[in-house]
């Protein structure tokens, strides 16, 4: 078994050496890693390097490697093509449409989630009789899994017997092909996604609103600010760190939307909701084209890195106080 650390022991001993000068020198000397320390350093870091290596670095490098090849029916890289896969991808109209769809989806989901979540939180933050009940209701979607909400919304969106079109018929409005019309399909999946994100977002915003000191509003009341002015000039800036957090979390989460898309539209109709992540899945595990999927993964990783960088550069500046 490990028998304490010899070098640490020695350090303690040198500390007892007489005279302050010597003591200082002894400490400095011991500050450098000794042979034994290095051994322990590797011993402790080794497992995490190993785990990271196997589960993070190797797959990353393998993905990069695969993206430079053509893969055969069994996923084996056979023909080296250099950057051809990237060229094909970036000149593909369908892929560009996918990027665009992802952009619309991510921005749509993030924007509406934030707006709706903040709105609900602002309502729930009021002192109204029975508001506790609504606070509970608003958080309810947190407990609903992707599959359940997808099925729930699928029922609503059913073109002939769904609730939405039944209501439309009742009101003599034209019915909508919620999931089969390319434009409406995007609206539908965004709606569902926003609905799913809402519980969590509401809770976070509600917590943030509650933590804004009441005296700030009192002071504003006295100094003559209307409640609208207070919302935009006190509430929003005060919760801006939360705002940033929610924006980043929702963006990342909607970038990764997979289950929802798979269950609701499977990327259709006409690729209208074929988001980048879903596309990778389809190319790899349905079509069996690992090279293309790997290329798409690398491109997506780059896109996400760029967006994250921009977010931190732009938003971090504004939320600091």
């Amino acid at each position, binding site marked *: *078994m*490990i*028998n*304490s*650390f010899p070098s640490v022991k020695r350090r303690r001993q040198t500390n007892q050496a007489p005279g302050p000068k010597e003591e200082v020198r002894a400490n400095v000397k011991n500050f450098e890693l000794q042979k034994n320390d290095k051994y322990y350093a590797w011993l402790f870091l080794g497992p995490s390097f190993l785990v990271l290596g196997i589960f993070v670095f190797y797959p990353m490098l393998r993905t990069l490697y695969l993206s430079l*090849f*053509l*893969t*055969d*029916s*069994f*996923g084996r890289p*056979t*023909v080296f093509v250099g950057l051809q896969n990237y060229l*094909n991808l970036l000149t593909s109209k*369908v892929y560009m449409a996918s990027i665009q769809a992802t952009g619309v989806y991510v921005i749509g989901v993030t924007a509406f989630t934030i707006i709706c979540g903040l709105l609900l939180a602002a309502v729930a933050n009021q002192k109204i009789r029975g508001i506790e009940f609504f606070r509970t209701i608003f958080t309810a979607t947190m407990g609903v899994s992707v599959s359940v909400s997808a099925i729930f919304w*699928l029922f609503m969106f*059913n*073109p*002939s*017997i769904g609730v939405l079109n039944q209501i439309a018929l009742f009101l003599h409005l034209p019915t909508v*092909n919620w*999931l*089969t*019309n*390319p434009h409406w*399909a995007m609206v539908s999946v965004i709606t569902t996604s926003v609905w799913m994100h809402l519980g969590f977002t509401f809770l976070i915003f509600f917590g943030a609103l509650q933590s804004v000191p009441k005296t700030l509003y009192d002071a504003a009341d006295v100094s003559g600010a209307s409640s609208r002015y207070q919302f935009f000039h006190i509430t929003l800036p005060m919760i801006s760190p939360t705002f940033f957090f929610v924006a980043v979390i929702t963006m990342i989460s909607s970038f990764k939307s997979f289950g929802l898309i798979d*269950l*609701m*539209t*499977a990327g*259709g*109709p*006409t*690729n209208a909701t074929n988001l980048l992540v879903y596309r990778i899945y*389809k190319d790899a*595990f*349905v*079509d*069996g*084209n690992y*090279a293309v999927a790997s290329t798409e993964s690398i491109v997506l990783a780059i896109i996400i890195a760029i967006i994250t960088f921009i977010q931190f550069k732009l938003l971090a500046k504004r939320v600091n106080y």
Partner: protein
Amino acid sequence: MTKLISIFKPHWRWGLGLLALLAIIGGFAYGNQAHAESKRIKVVFWHEMKGPGQKQIDAYVKAFNKKQSKYEVVAEFEGGYNGVIQKIMNTHGTAASPALFQSMDISTSQMYHSGFTTPVQKFVDRDHYDLDQLVPGARAIYSRNGKLLSMPFNSSQTALYYNKAVLKKYGITPPPVDPTYSDITRVAKQIHDKSHGQVKGMTMEAYSWLFEQLVANAGVPLANHNNGHTGDATKVDFTSPAAIKAMQWVKENIDYGDFINFGSGGNASANEAASFLSGHLGIFMQSSAKTGQLYKVLKNNLGVTYFPRPDGKKANGIAVGGASLWISNDKPAAVQNGAWEFSKFLVNAKNQATWQAKTGYLAVNKHAKDEPLLKQLFKKSPVLEVSGNQMLRTTPNDTNSGIFIDGLVPARTSIQNAMQQIFAGQDIYKSLKAAENSYNKVLESNNRANGRG
């Protein structure tokens, strides 16, 4: 640190003792199990059947294991068709791979090229097994150069369903059993007109299989080298006059307003079935495997016809879909023999009769329909026989025996994309051409990656 260790010190002997005890117990349990199995040759069978299919397979496995004492078949459910291909690729040559596995129709070429399987023809020739008892169309898609690669198993074809109650209500003459495009259009339009739009005439899921079969029924190939049967396909043709005509037929109904679009994928087929069963939709096309479920609800109000054909043309017949049974070549001969024996057992007339009765898949054994079980069933409910007849009357040729290409899934994806575009009102030729071009690129790179073409 030393302190922490010393806390455990008094207990570590106990822990070690406990571990040893567990190991001994475990060893006994394992030993017993191994002992019991060692008498029989274990044959692991991977399948992807859910619901009634899974129940029926378990029943066959039980019966087979009881019937003989040489082999012990172990059935394992492996999830979806797509996943199992990857699993086979990844486990081949290891102890984890199965002796026998079920794989879907469009994976035939890939399995053939993998070299992971022993062609069934080898056992057929050795045992002088009578292949004539199997439906020709079912054999055709799992054959290469006249040799059977795998044992046809769960089989289905595309069928057209209509709701007789709806037709009766509005006094519409039902379509003939072997309808043309315009037969269906007539009925669909009449449903729409006479119900004043309350009931939709027809739908077609944006499902490539349906498109492929419309083209097959017209007797036109979708890929060169006779759909890949006489050589490696290097080009596909989604814009043949037959393909265009099939889509024009749909378009006519879309333009008339009697067509409803349910889109693509699992939800689409669930939605269209729900609409059909609730009387909101008159006609739709799906796998014949749905017949049983629909019949359960509609009883004799369910109408079934053969898959539609172009006007003025005799039906060429359509391919048999579904999946077949493959024997892995990484197992010893004795195990492979067990797999072969079990395959034969599954497709005998009696078992195929129960298979069709219980699951709705079409029996691949010609003699199954002479079994009392199916005879009675067909007498009572003639609609259940329609799709089987469609399969039996088909003379297989290169245009109605599937497409022999590795990785057909992307082709289906692009065709489905084109169908959705067409359903959304875009130009037929342009949409299909785009799909054709996009898949030709995939095909070219696939062939290059696989050292073909």
